[in-house]
């Protein structure tokens, strides 16, 4: 099965749980394992959090997801100033910030940043999907009643 969707969101934190709902429900309907789902949701939340915090002055940002062919690709697109700092290693425990990008790197297979200074940042996250054993065939969900 091949699913694509795109969400245009206000640049506010309240939209981040909504992105997780839509993406999480889509992946779970396709019998993706819970570990794989939670890795993707973690990375996407981190990227959305960055878009909300640093994607100003624009007041919206966009999330585009494509699920299919055993992969999940998510693009988080903001129209901010495009000034994302790339940390090389995890900050010391004294520091409370700077972990988001490293967490993303740790839980997805591929990550690309397209940073256009003054015009915005696109983060592209890609992960191979692990599917529950015995649930390979799509459409196995049953109707509640007929």
């Amino acid at each position: 099965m091949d699913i694509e969707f795109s969400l245009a969101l206000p640049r506010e934190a309240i939209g981040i749980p909504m992105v997780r709902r839509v993406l999480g429900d889509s992946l779970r309907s396709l019998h993706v394992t819970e570990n794989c789902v939670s890795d993707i949701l973690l990375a996407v939340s981190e990227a959305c959090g960055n878009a909300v915090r640093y994607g100003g002055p624009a007041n919206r940002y966009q999330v585009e997801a494509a699920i299919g062919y055993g992969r999940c690709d998510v693009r988080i697109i903001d129209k901010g100033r495009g000034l994302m700092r790339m940390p090389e290693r995890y900050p010391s425990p004294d520091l409370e910030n700077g972990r988001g990008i490293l967490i993303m790197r740790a839980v997805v297979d591929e990550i690309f940043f397209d940073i256009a200074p003054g015009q915005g940042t696109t983060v592209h996250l890609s992960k191979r999907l692990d599917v529950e054993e015995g649930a390979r065939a799509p459409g196995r969900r049953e109707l509640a009643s007929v």
Partner: protein
Amino acid sequence: MAVVGEIDLYTAPRLQAEFARLLQESTTNLVVIDMSGVEFCDSTGMNVLLSALKRLRERGGALEVAGPRPAVRKILQVTGLDSVFTVHETVPEELLTAEPKA
């Protein structure tokens, strides 16, 4: 202290405020957080825990995490923070004191 729900950029300020209240109202220097009801936590949640840990250490104390689900254990692991907080697999029952929700 038990936290229930999802911790992210949206809910973290509430958790932060709850910690601030707890640390102001009480002189305790050991806080154990029951995270068994936390379905999701990202770096903003970790940041709240770290700032609480810092405050508690200033008092010579510590912050411990109990009962994390796999998703929470994963973020503790990838950030290396599982070696900064003491992580209990299960919740030590005698330590439960309050139950604010996030």
